[in-house]
């Protein structure tokens, strides 16, 4: 149904809802503009740390390998530290086994929480959802914003690491680096989806953040313990970190990465349906 009203200037205005894709694009662009500093703050700081590690590798290569050989076996298994005889393994142990996946997942959770739960708490959703914007599109755009901004942050991180490696002559393999970035992105999407799922029944941003980051930490601990404790090993399958593994050191499992990202999308879809069914307060 097309409805037109006579505007003051004599122009005829089309008062039909915009296509969902157009609304989605508008919200994603707005979301990315709102977080335009994230590549510098998140990507810049993680990239600087990573670049430093890659840059110092040639000077510490011999001593690190020697030191790692003396570490207890259990410790090495728990933290995925194999033989630190190449820069990829060293960068993986220092950054990509804990700091980067946790930081990026937390960032993605924050994007979702801020777009939905924090916006609801602040009364912004009253304004936004009084316009022809569906709740499904709201959730989808929040997830897409998290995906896009996480990718940009990882690109900054990857570029900084690659440049540092090239300058220092560390020999960081580009393929492995890209694999690690894709792996982290997929993991972050899972937790973004989990946060979106939590906004379905939960209104308070603190509760949504607690559920998503609590699960993130719990999954990390389960994976960690599963590697060293035989009793916990059988439940490692429940941890997303089991599927993330160590893509920088061992290469990416494309199926596992796709599974993580698609699970995130699926969780977000369920979150959108739950959000549609409840009141906005």
């Amino acid at each position, binding site marked *: 149904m097309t409805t037109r009203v006579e505007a003051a200037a004599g122009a005829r205005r089309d008062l039909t809802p915009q296509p969902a894709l157009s609304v989605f694009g508008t919200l994603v662009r707005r979301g990315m503009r709102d977080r335009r500093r994230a590549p510098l703050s998140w990507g810049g700081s993680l990239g600087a740390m990573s670049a430093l590690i890659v840059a110092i590798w040639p000077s510490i290569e011999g001593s690190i390998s020697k030191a790692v050989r003396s570490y207890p076996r259990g410790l090495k298994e728990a933290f995925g530290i194999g033989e630190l005889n190449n820069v990829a393994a060293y960068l993986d142990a220092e950054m990509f086994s804990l700091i980067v996946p946790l930081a990026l997942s937390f960032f993605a959770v924050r994007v979702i929480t801020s777009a939905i739960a924090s916006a609801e708490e602040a009364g912004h959703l009253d*304004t936004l959802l009084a316009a022809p914007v569906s709740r499904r599109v709201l959730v989808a755009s929040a997830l897409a914003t998290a995906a896009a901004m996480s990718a940009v942050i990882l690109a900054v991180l990857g570029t900084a690491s690659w440049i540092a490696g090239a300058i220092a002559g560390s020999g960081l393999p580009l393929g492995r680096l890209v694999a690690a970035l894709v792996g982290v992105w997929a993991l972050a999407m899972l937790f973004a989806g989990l946060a979106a799922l939590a906004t379905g029944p939960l209104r308070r941003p603190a509760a949504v953040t607690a559920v998503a980051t609590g699960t993130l930490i719990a999954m990390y601990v389960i994976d960690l313990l599963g590697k060293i404790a035989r009793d916990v090993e059988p439940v490692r399958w429940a941890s997303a970190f089991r599927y993330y593994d160590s893509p920088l050191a061992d290469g990416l499992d494309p199926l596992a990465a796709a599974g993580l990202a698609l699970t995130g999308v699926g969780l977000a879809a369920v979150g959108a349906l739950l959000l549609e069914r409840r009141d906005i307060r």
Partner: protein
Amino acid sequence: MFELEVGSDARDTVSGPVTPVIETAELTKTYGESRGIDGVSMTVEAGEVFGFLGPNGAGKTTTIRTLLDLLHPTSGSARVFGLDSRRDTLRIRARTGNLPGDFAYDARLTGREVIDLFARLRGISDLGRARDLAERFEADLDRPLAELSRGNRQKVGLVQAMFHEPELLILDEPTSGLDPLMQEEFLKVVREARERGGTVFLSSHDLDEVERVCDRVGIIRHGRLVDVEEVADLTERAYRHVTLEFSGPVDAAEFAAIAGVTELERSGNRIAFKAQSNLDAVIKAAARHELVDIELTHPSLEEIFLTFYGEHGPR
């Protein structure tokens, strides 16, 4: 529970009956054990300015938020433009402009960025009307919302609600925070919207504001719609508190005899009473004596409710 079929005799034309712009049937919303609204049935016709009057917490905002599908009704139904408020909510919201009671959006954005965002979401490329409204309301669109006072934020909210020339304006306490000059401008814009054939649903707890711009009013109290009437009828029933102070003793019976004067009290040279509609006779009677002071005050909305609608419904 009061069920008021107001305007159900919708204007029939040769092309068939006119669909009310808003039609609720036994609309009820409860929050757990708390009351929201209870069995609200009303219709708002196209081209009218409908005032939704009630004290704070009466259920005005709950009704509005249910019409906009922000809240889902516990029972009953609401139709806007003849469309179901839940199933067809996007089509309804595309044709509607809304101002929440306390307009809030991302405080980092300037008013211009907010209007630009909502124009894109609504597919509006011509922002001429937005510029016109911003000028009339003296809205500052260049500063972030965080730096604006509540009144100035409300002005941005008004522009956001009206810039796309919606067929229906739903305004929740729109003038709260606005200075008197801006309130005047707002009422002018509302009248213009009506002249263009638009419909306005305006919630307020300000009887004066409602009297000046609305055609009909619905009165809500404790979540229940207790009455719907023409503004002219409400004005007719409204009374004033009158206090007269004379230079010497005056016979109070002279004022007690005037039709519409009630609750007369005398204290020395001062006489106080309620006068309903017959102020001319009161002034003429007072003018026969040496008057030192005269005071006329409007009753508060709460007082009117207690007088006309009591605790449990209309008298």
